[in-house]
């Protein structure tokens, strides 16, 4: 029985089902993550701790970095991002998410024509 919220780091990627060479496709990705927000003490000061959220997303295609995102606690829980990718050759899309607790989560998708 999975505990609610324990399933951190599951990555889902969606790419169009048919892709033509040279097309700029739209890639949709989601990773399950709490993206913890600040909590405050009685005097309205933020409680000091290492909040747990994804701070960086790196997208590579066939090993080459396509784009990067610096994300913050002001990105929603279970971060969703969508981005373009110009596909000139078949290959492997890899999306890596890094969080403040030192964990990385990776998802990949094969792209063929």
């Amino acid at each position, binding site marked *: 029985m999975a505990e609610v919220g324990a399933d951190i780091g599951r990555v889902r990627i969606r790419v169009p089902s048919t892709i033509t060479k040279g097309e700029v496709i739209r890639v949709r990705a989601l990773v399950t993550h709490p993206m913890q927000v600040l909590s405050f003490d009685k005097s309205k000061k*933020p409680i*000091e*701790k290492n909040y747990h*959220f994804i701070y960086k997303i790196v997208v590579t295609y066939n090993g080459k970095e396509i784009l990067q*995102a610096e*994300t*913050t606690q*002001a990105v929603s829980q279970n971060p969703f991002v969508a981005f373009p990718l110009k596909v000139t050759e078949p290959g492997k899309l890899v999306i890596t998410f890094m969080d403040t607790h030192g964990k990385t989560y990776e998802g990949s998708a094969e792209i063929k024509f």
Partner: protein
Amino acid sequence: MDFKTREQKLTRRSFLSKLGAVGLTGVAVSLGLGSAMQALAQSAPLGAPLPSEKVEDTIKRLFGGRSISPGNGKVKLEAPLIAENGSVVPVTVEANLPMTRDKYVKSIYIISDKNRRPLNAKFSLTPEAGKASISANIRLAETTDVRAIVEMNDGSLYMVKEEVKVTVGGCGG
């Protein structure tokens, strides 16, 4: 801040965490000056709270005094006019600007004026992305202007903004 610096901070963080949270709290709070706290924050864990910031200061911090041109016609920001809740607000930024090797959109910033720290996210693109168009789900603390600032590789900046009203529940939820 580039990726390498962050990697170094990770190892420092694991060392600092052994000192315990109490020590870090004491240091961060006692100074209380904006930029000083910022400097200290860089030696703190990656997820440590950063000081609150007014949007004018965010923009100054990110772009110095560089001029920002209105992006109407070049940049489109799609966000719901009324967000059902501030926790998940889908935004899409689309820039009708070149993405060639010589001239391309280098960064797209999403900024929410009334958030405690207005910068929601920064996307860095390469020409291989093919198009300057990103979407993300962001958090809004309250009704606010949401801005998209697009930076070209030659440093030119374009901005558009939209007001997003954040609804609070009626029946509480």
